[in-house]
């Protein structure tokens, strides 16, 4: 049904059907490039970096669907990453599974296990808010790292666990892991996107803006937060399982790594907190950079210093992140363009409108 009054609302120039179509083409093109990548770049050093990047795309998207949407800054998602990794190592060991593509079938199970871990973790941590929540998640992370060192029956302690090594040739070895990581990353992005568009996702954003008021409007805040954390944990756990399989061995400090917690958060901040594309863009920038720096300058210390610097720069100059900033810029451009080209102004009292948009347009064109 046509709504005469809705026509008066200033339409979002990034949400027109043309824009939606071009956005769809971009996504499909990116997916095609991602699938073709390991067949074009066969150098194992490159595909290895690409595989890690995809794992971080998944893990950062997962972090963002909870922390970005609800505003609860979790700094302990490595708990789920490590849980997924250790579950994967354990189940392949107990079932005496032969190495091969079939092992990837255990990845979703590892994710479900991480989701199970998220239940008590969330139940505990989500009794708090804001800064307390951040501190609690960090504390829970260290408890899990300690458990990994000490529950030797499950984790073999600091001696670590060995996983079955696949017998794939050197040219295709990374490709299998790359594809597995791509699948996990795509799942995480699709879930994140679906959440963002759903009324459930809208409730999460409402919790971010004003949790108490959301509750008064009938939003089941605790249940929603816990459900989303479990969802994020499942995605993160799947990333952890692929990671463990790729490394071939797993040790407490690598499965439960504090840097991981900070990295996935930084990626989302850089790309754009609470947006679907933000963590993807952030991971695509940060992970290759970090891997390159680690390879180039052994020791890894330099990349950590650059990390800190980057974090400060992002917060100082791009507090909203790359995606929202670019979106805002594009929106401005398009509005200015539309104002120039439209011969018939959208609103009847046009005289005043046109007069006021005049200088704005010339300003936009100057930029």
């Amino acid at each position, binding site marked *: 049904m046509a709504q005469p*009054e*809705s026509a008066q*609302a*200033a339409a*979002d120039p990034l949400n027109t059907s043309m824009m939606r179509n071009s956005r769809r083409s971009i996504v499909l093109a990116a997916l095609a490039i991602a699938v073709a990548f390991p067949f074009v770049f066969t150098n194992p050093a490159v595909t290895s970096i690409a595989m890690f990047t995809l794992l971080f795309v998944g893990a950062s998207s997962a972090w963002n669907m909870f922390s970005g949407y609800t505003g609860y800054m979790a700094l302990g998602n490595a708990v789920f990453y490590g849980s997924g990794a250790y579950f994967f190592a354990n189940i392949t060991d107990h079932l005496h599974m032969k190495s091969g593509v079939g092992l990837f079938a255990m990845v979703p199970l590892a994710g479900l296990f991480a989701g199970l871990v998220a239940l008590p973790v969330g139940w505990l941590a989500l009794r708090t808010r804001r800064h307390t929540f951040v501190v609690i998640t960090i504390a829970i992370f260290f408890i899990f790292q300690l458990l990994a060192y000490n529950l030797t029956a499950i984790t073999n302690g600091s001696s670590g666990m060995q996983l079955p090594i696949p017998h794939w040739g050197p040219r295709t070895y990374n490709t299998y892991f790359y594809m597995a990581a791509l699948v996990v990353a795509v799942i995480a992005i699709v879930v994140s996107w679906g959440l963002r568009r759903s009324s459930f996702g809208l409730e999460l954003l409402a919790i971010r803006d004003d949790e108490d008021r*959301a509750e*008064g409007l*009938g939003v*089941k805040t605790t249940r929603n937060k816990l459900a989303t954390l479990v969802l994020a944990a499942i995605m993160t756990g799947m990333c952890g399982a692929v990671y463990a399989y790729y490394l071939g061995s797993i040790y407490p400090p690598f499965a439960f790594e504090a840097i991981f917690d900070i990295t996935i958060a930084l990626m989302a901040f850089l790309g754009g907190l609470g947006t679907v594309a933000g963590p993807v863009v952030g991971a695509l920038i940060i992970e290759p950079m970090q891997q390159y720096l680690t390879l180039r300058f052994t020791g890894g210390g330099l990349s950590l210093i650059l990390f800190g610097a980057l974090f400060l720069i992002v917060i100082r100059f791009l507090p909203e992140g790359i995606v929202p900033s670019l979106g805002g810029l594009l929106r401005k451009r398009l509005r200015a363009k539309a104002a120039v080209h439209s011969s018939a102004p959208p609103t009847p009292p046009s005289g005043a409108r046109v007069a006021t948009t005049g200088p704005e347009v010339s300003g936009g064109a100057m930029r």
Partner: protein
Amino acid sequence: MTALLEVSEIEKHFGGLQAVTNCSFAVEEGTVTGLIGPNGSGKTTIFNVITGYVQADSGTVRIGDRDVTGTGPGGICALGLGRTFQLTRVFARLTLLENIRVGSRGVPRAKRKELYSSQRCHELLDFVGLTRLANEQAGSLSYGQRKLVELATVLAQEPRVVLLDEPAGGINPTLIGQMADRIRELNRQGVTFLVVEHNMEFVMGICDSVAVMERGSVIAFGKPEEVRNDPRVLDAYLGGAVDDELTQPEEPR
């Protein structure tokens, strides 16, 4: 006429401060009831008790014939009671349309589609005169406009009772008039209101009855014109301390 909302013998203290003492009143169905009183007399506390944001020490709250004492904000919402806040609360980074849609899962599934159809959401924005800003973030609005968005968000759920905490506070006279019009119109459609407000002209203009609170309890209840001339009310508003000294000089200390 039956009481749709009934508060009886509510007590609430915060630490050493007795915010509400033996507070009782009832809101009849289909009326606009005002709740007035000097600053600190416990009006907002009563609102918070009714809507489940604060637990009373004792006393009961009833909606219809249901005892809802101790029910949380979500449960109160499900019973058809909506509220706005004194310090206006909108979802600042959501657009106006999104703000309205936040409550969609708080209504019964059967009514969700109808209440939150795109057309009705736009109608609600039109109702509060903000259609033009439908896709703007609520955080970019003026204080008064935010109050209207807050009201529209509550109205979307089609509540039976709406509690408004200072709907006219801090907004310009044009918007005050608009707010009063909207309340009257909704009341004609059958919505019951309980309104906390300091603006007397506003209260006297829209209310069928008025409850006056002082120091945590209701000291007077009646039609606006009765309450206006009640000596206890004048006393409460103009300050009893001077009066006390004048009328009771011989009281032993």
